[in-house]
């Protein structure tokens, strides 16, 4: 026995970090993409007027 209880997941921080990093990258990336596309569309509209 190495002290680990049966049926209990040991460790796993690497999966936790991966999930949070993936969430941050996708949510921030999408937010940045929306802000950037919106600003560009507004400046195009202002130029056209």
């Amino acid at each position, binding site marked *: 026995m190495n002290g680990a209880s049966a*049926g*209990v*997941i*040991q*460790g*796993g*921080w690497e*999966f*936790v970090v*991966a*999930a*949070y990093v*993936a*969430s941050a990258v*996708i*949510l*921030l990336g*999408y*937010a940045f993409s*929306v*802000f950037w*596309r*919106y600003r560009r*569309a*507004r400046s*195009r*509209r202002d130029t*056209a007027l």
Partner: protein
Amino acid sequence: MGKGVWPFVMAGLGLALLAWGSTWGLAFAPREAYMGEVQRIMYVHVPTAWNAMLVLTFAFACALVSLLRGGWRWDARLEAAIEAGVVLSGLVCIQGSIWARPTWGVWWDWDPRLTTTAVLLFAFGGILALRQFVDDPVKRAVWSSVAVVIAYVDVPLVYFSVRWWNSLHQLQSTPETVSRAFHWPLRINAFGVLFLLIGLVELRARLAFLRREAESAPPPPVRVAEALGGVR
């Protein structure tokens, strides 16, 4: 504060709540008895899943209003909600896959919950692609609204799949099924994703509306020099 600023404020508030809830979930919430540290993925996975279904329900409402009453603003909201729904559904699949590896031993399984979620992602992703390919704005609005009404059938299937069929995925996480110690980070992140989503959907709808205005705008006057092949 100008009226146009509120989506930025909502998005900023959402990000701040997400930072707070995630710090709580990672550093201060207790480890779960059986899943150990891996359970901390729940604090981002479950709020993402809730809000994915919520924004796709909003897309369904926009599609109905767009079909019954018309109006380009509803079509713009529809486009925004579909895009946000696709992003969140994709993120749910990635987070779920990362959680599945240490708990189930596989990255993916064709289990009812996972399969219906994948169908959701591809169905709404397909509708988003459809909108890119249709040039006529009226046809684009009607066809995508009808497609959303049909594809929305999958949202209740995703929700109830864990109850109706024998699924590897655990039952829905609710305040009744989650210990009190885990409530706060889960709720804070749920509101964080919600506020971020509200801000982004509003901005994305404004963007869609600006593009729609540009489509209907008369073509710019042709300059003589350009028409004769001269330098701009």
